[in-house]
């Protein structure tokens, strides 16, 4: 679907970054009139989606979209290069931005949040930097937009402005900035010193002439440098970021920001190391098992959390490592699974967060133990929660099945049976900490101490919230039956295939 045929293809990249940016400015300009401001957000999001769809069109046609913006250092600058993996991520982010915007309008008003203009402005800015990350043509560009994303989400995390928000923001910024400067920048500079280029190329930029030990160290630096991927022990920022309003947790800390992390790792592995090149490095397996450990450990931690958003946060940490593991298995099928998991986990997890926010707006409950019996008051919300949970667990007929399937096949192909076991155990753990929530909500009675006078008043959340969570849970279902376009897109990535 291409509404932008009149334009030079490469200009679509510029537009996809500038449109949310201009949107952010317009949000400030229209801040006095909330209805107009929200209209600006929605229109911007719609325009962005149409742009990304046009770019997708060109990608399927095989047109290369390249753009050099400015040269920062001799022979090295900000440049963009569209490739299928980035398109996949851009599609997910821009589509879910629309849904989240609808949701956010209901949530922010229903919850009477302060500083809504700043909120919508920073939101648009972070989407703009996500687009920059998606289409980056070299590591320098990726790094720049990665840092811009960190900084533009900081005001969102600390939105509440109280002590808890300040503390959360401190951890958030501290871990993300530190890892990116100390590890990621170092790895990027090291790569530049070794190869003299930072371009993303099919098959990678390292060859046999490079010292394998140095490359192994670089791999570790890259994996930990991308702190947004939340590999243990640098995962603390993600639970800390849950002090943010729920739409932020939903879009940014289940989709845009964290996926920017794993996307970066995937992109670095495919286009800098090359899937083949990865096989010779000693640290590939080390990082693989650290990723596997993260999957299991954070699922275990999730079980201990009574706060719903905290539980979902640890579940996200665990799910992110699926993608890291998929990338590090160094097999084409596992990489495809990892790429698909970016999309399937996104719709599943955003549904869960939407539900958490809906519960908070409607009943002001944050803790799972208080939610028993709530399902009868809010059936739509909890039904959506169940759908999202099943998708995360990876059971049919939900989207999560497919990505997990490909990941497991990849692990089997490479004879990594431990990873297969980890994936299965993780599914069991997911069942243990996700499914009881809707089950208790529907089938248990409210706890003894619940205030009956408030209980009788509780009803479903405002309409925009319900619309949003119905759409995303519908996506979980639809993507099980109709995943082919995304699979086709993933198959276009060089060296990656679902067959």
């Amino acid at each position, binding site marked *: 679907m291409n509404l932008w045929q009149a334009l030079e293809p490469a200009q679509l990249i510029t537009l996809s970054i500038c449109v949310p940016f201009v949107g952010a400015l317009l949000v400030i300009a229209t801040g006095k009139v909330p209805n107009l401001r929200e209209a600006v957000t929605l229109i911007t999001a719609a325009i962005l989606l149409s742009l990304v769809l046009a770019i997708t069109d060109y990608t399927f046609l095989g047109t290369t979209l390249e753009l050099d913006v400015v040269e920062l250092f001799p022979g090295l600058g900000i440049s963009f290069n569209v490739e299928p993996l980035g398109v996949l991520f851009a599609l997910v982010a821009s589509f879910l931005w629309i849904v989240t915007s609808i949701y956010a309008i209901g949530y922010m008003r229903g919850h009477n949040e302060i500083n809504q203009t700043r909120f919508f402005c920073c939101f648009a800015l972070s989407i703009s930097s996500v687009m920059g990350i998606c289409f980056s043509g070299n590591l320098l560009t990726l790094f720049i937009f990665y840092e811009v994303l960190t900084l533009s989400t900081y005001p969102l995390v600390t939105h509440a402005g109280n002590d808890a928000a300040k503390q959360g923001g401190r951890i958030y910024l501290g871990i993300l900035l530190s890892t990116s400067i100390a590890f990621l920048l170092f790895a990027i500079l090291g790569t*530049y010193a070794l190869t003299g280029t930072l371009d993303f190329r099919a098959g990678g930029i390292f060859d046999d002439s490079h010292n394998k030990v140095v490359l192994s160290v670089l791999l570790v630096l890259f994996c930990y440098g991308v702190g947004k991927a939340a590999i243990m022990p640098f995962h603390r920022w993600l639970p800390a970021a849950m002090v943010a309003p729920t739409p932020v947790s939903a879009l940014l800390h289940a989709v845009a920001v964290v996926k920017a992390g794993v996307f970066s790792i995937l992109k670095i592995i495919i286009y800098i190391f090359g899937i083949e090149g990865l096989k010779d490095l000693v640290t590939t397996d080390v990082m693989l098992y650290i990723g596997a450990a993260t999957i299991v450990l954070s699922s275990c931690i999730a079980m201990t959390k009574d706060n719903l958003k905290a539980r979902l946060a640890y579940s996200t940490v665990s799910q992110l490592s699926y993608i890291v593991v998929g990338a590090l298995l160094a097999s084409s099928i596992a990489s495809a699974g990892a790429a698909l998991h970016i999309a399937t986990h996104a719709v599943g997890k955003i549904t869960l967060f939407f539900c958490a926010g809906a519960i908070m707006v409607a009943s002001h409950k944050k803790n799972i133990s208080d939610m028993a019996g709530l399902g009868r008051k809010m059936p739509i919300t909890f039904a959506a929660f169940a759908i999202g949970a099943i998708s995360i667990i990876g059971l049919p007929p939900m989207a999560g099945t497919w990505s997990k399937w490909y990941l497991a096949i990849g692990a089997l192909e490479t004879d990594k049976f431990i990873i297969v076991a980890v994936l299965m155990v993780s599914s069991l753990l997911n069942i243990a900490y996700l499914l009881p929530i809707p089950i208790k909500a529907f089938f248990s009675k409210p706890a003894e101490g619940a205030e009956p006078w408030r209980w009788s008043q509780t009803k479903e959340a405002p309409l925009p919230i319900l619309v949003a969570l119905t759409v995303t849970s519908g996506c979980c279902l639809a993507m099980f039956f109709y995943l082919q376009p995304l699979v086709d897109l993933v198959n276009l990535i060089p060296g990656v295939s679902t067959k």
Partner: protein
Amino acid sequence: MLEQHLAVLPIILPLIAAPLALILGRSIFSWGFATLVSGLAFLLSWQLLAAALSDGVLSYAVGGWAPPWGIELRVDAANAFVLLAVTAISTLVLVYSKHSIEKEVKAANHSLFYTAHLLCLAGLSGILITGDAFNLFVFLEISSLATYTLVSLASDRRCLTAAFRYLVMGTIGATFILIGVGLLYMKTGTLNMLDLAERIDLYDSSRTINTGLAFIMVGVSIKLALFPLHMWLPPAYTHAPSAVTAFLASTATKVAVYVMIRFIFTVFGIDHVFVDMGMGLILMALAVVAIFKCSYMATVQSNVKTVLAYSSVAQIGYLVLGLSLVSVSGLMASMIHIFNHALMKGALFMAVGAVFYRVGSVDIKDFAGLGRKMPLTMAAFTIAGLSIIGVPLTVGFVSKWYLVIAALEQDQWLVAALVLVGSLFAVIYIGRIIEAAYFQKLPESRSSENIKEVSWLMLVPMWVLVIANIYFGIDTSLTTEAANSASEWLFQTNSMLENKVMEGEVLEGHAIEEKAQEVSS
């Protein structure tokens, strides 16, 4: 006619203007006059840089006495580049200082302030341009004496002990340099830098020369506040008037770094300093310790000016580290950082001065709630702070990029890692201040005070620097081109000297430079 004397004008102009500023008497007149003169000096240095980049070296014989007997001024890409930064900052600080010193300096001393500032500018320009080792000492003393005066002008009486401490340490440093230059003169019988360079090579392992080198290096290290000789700097920067701190932090120590570069690369020769005397390792170790120790010190201070002062000492570590790598790219990283750091620290100290102007204190706790009361000032502080941290699209990132690349080129992976880890401290010490400004409430006791944004006369220079921080972070062509040709130039003159000694060919100092120019063109 004037073009002929272009090289000497940036010194002469402020030197003559300084007493005139005193005679003008009224604060507003001396302010306007001093700003005008400084602005002229900036335009002149712009021309000088353009001339140096296109024609190579400009040599000027003071009083018509031909070098090496007379005093020679030599403008090349390296010093024209630093001169541009110095005069630019000086002009901006002067614009800024009108309101700032009204608050911080007694009214009777206002014209004295502008006089001392112009003298300091003349001294710094002289240090940069001169091609004569003794003349360099003279200008160093002019600028230093003016600086002691400037520091002691603050109305807070603690500035007097700070200035005295600075005076004692500064004088020791100057004396060391004088002794060093004296030793060189004793052995070689010349004071012209190029002449010195040539003759020092002939007396390769003379103990007198080596002692001279040691004295000069220690003396310069005091002046540039290299760890562990930096103890004078934090109190001086803390208690001096804000406008003075902004000027000194972004120029004085940078000029001292330039002096070190000049002595190492032009006078003694890198082989002598780094290979025979093994100073590379000493400088590198001190630089790394400076980065870590002083960055850490910056994180535990409560006075924001002291925080930034310690940060300055740490940044000097980066400058020295760059030159201790002994490569064109290392030197280039240092030259770029001289320029870039002037932009960041100038902006930061101006923002802090603006806070002092309104709030009357610069303790971190007094920054509470200023994010809403002084949005433009705090935004400037935040952006310049991000630049110190080294966030992409700011000049700090460019500096860090070149420095780490230079270290990696020499296979110094450990040093590269230490540089990056050291820069994380900046996240903490800048983060603390920003957090106070944006997340803490204005204390009740202050809510009655009329705290609002400062006037545009303070905001404009501050924001010019902030925008420069971003502009030169994106369009790096000017800084890299100038720094690159400066460092290549320094290396070429050096290697020409080395070659000549090996071939046993005796060339006059100036013939060598001509040859170097041929090679470079």
